[in-house]
């Protein structure tokens, strides 16, 4: 009965594959720099970028932490707001009538175009970047989760109706758990978008963060530092994606009633309603 599903290959093998790919890319990059003799302020060699990473590690850490905080805060707030909106839409026909057209229309506005306004209103601090990130991930999370909430098996809702269920209990105990896979795909998108939102916000006007550092380094022709900042950003984004991807897989498995292999069956649970 318990299917293997899309089990990923062993993590060690995957890590080896990725390491090999990265090594090839670095080798080609270094080769291009050697062969063409392109000046370092146009394209620094990987070795030079590595050196910049080590030398400027304090700087990278300082600005990296700022961006990390913006991304995480934006992610948590955006996902929470998006989920709350989806629930509101699912519960209330009035909300659907009023909110849904506005939501769809709001997607016609390129969120990036709002960045200067946000900076104007909220200043150069992290506030405007967090709001930017929230704006960018709010819609994917809200629409994915709402889709899931809407697609509950109608027969389950019939069963609940015959049982005399309360609407809120139906939402919390049937519709929301059944929509967890869709919520998870919203989270996956959010993980991709969140760093973009924060960095765009920083480009438009900031006093800190990796995006700010990249602009600063670029302006001073410190291309190696710019690449180093980019590299740190990319690493962070990949780590975030892996983290949220793992969380998403757990939510999906839970919704399917799968237990993790090797774990004993759940013990009878104490009453939760007391």
């Amino acid at each position, binding site marked *: *009965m*318990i299917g293997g599903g899309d089990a990923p290959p062993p993590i060690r093998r995957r890590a080896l594959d990725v390491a090999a790919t990265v090594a090839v890319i670095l080798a080609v990059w270094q080769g291009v720099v050697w062969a063409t003799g392109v000046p370092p302020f146009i394209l620094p060699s990987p070795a030079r970028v590595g050196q910049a990473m080590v030398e400027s590690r304090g700087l990278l850490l300082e600005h990296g932490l700022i961006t990390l905080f913006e991304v995480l805060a934006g992610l948590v707030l955006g996902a929470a707001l998006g989920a709350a909106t989806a629930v509101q839409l699912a519960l209330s026909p009035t909300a659907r009538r009023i909110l849904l057209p506005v939501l769809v229309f709001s997607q016609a506005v390129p969120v990036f175009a709002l960045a200067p306004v946000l900076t104007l209103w909220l200043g150069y601090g992290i506030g405007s970047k967090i709001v930017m990130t929230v704006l960018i991930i709010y819609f994917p999370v809200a629409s994915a989760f709402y889709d899931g909430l809407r697609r509950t*098996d109608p*027969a*389950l809702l*019939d*069963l*609940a*109706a*015959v*049982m*005399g*269920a*309360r609407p809120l*209990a*139906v939402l919390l*105990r*049937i519709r929301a*758990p*059944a929509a967890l896979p869709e919520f998870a795909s919203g989270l996956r998108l959010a993980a991709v978008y969140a760093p973009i939102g924060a960095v765009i916000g920083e480009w438009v006007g900031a006093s800190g963060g990796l995006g700010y550092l990249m602009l600063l380094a670029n302006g001073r022709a410190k291309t190696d530092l710019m690449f180093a900042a980019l590299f740190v950003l990319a690493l962070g984004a990949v780590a975030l994606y892996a983290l949220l991807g793992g969380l998403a897989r757990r939510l999906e498995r*839970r*919704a*399917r*009633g*799968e*237990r993790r292999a090797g774990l004993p*069956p*759940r*013990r*009878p*649970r104490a*009453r939760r*309603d*007391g």
Partner: protein
Amino acid sequence: MAPAPGLILEGAFAFGGRRLFSLDFEAPAGRWTCLLGPSGVGKSTVLRLLAGLETGGRLEGRLGASDGRPLAGRVAWMAQSDLLLPWLDVRENVTLGARLRGERPDGARAERLIGEVGLEEHAGKTPRELSGGMRQRAALARLLMEDRPVALLDEPFAALDLRLRLEMQDLAHRVLAGRTVVLVTHDAHEAARLGDRVLLMTEAGARELPPPEGAAPRAADAPETLRAQAELTRALVGEAAA
């Protein structure tokens, strides 16, 4: 459990201005009434009307219980698919109704009913760890847990293989004793085994057929059962062709 009422449903059902069927249906209190017919004649709609569920159409006529009290809150429902929530184990699924009403589930009673349908070994398993027959047993325990005097069964055994189906029929008949049961089915053999009353519903309308001899559940291979099955099949095929 409150005493089981009889059920009455008479009138014409229309969908989008078009009359789909008219019916004079009566289910005696505490007995099994089988609603036999081909797919698409509105058997399930009859059940949905009795359950108080949305049908998209309109009934002109009378619908209610023989004791004159409203049916709402006295009806439990079981469908062809088990409708178990995949993320809950059997125990949690069986007590779902109480949770959905914001009541405290009676754990001891749930354990007893899970035992009654033969799932005591599997109470902590999720639906994907159960076979199709076990899942229908869990759905039956969930229906029993609701403790409603009327049970509406919408082809609950149709997806099971013959042996499992016969087992489930016997089990359901035993545990639902005393309740007013309406069983929708397209299986003449099932109606012949279980029906105290058998109503044939086809495009031409609904009419009562003489109930088979002997007390239900009748043996699957008894001559009376098979004879009744043959008669029901003849009526089913004959009226569909007419």
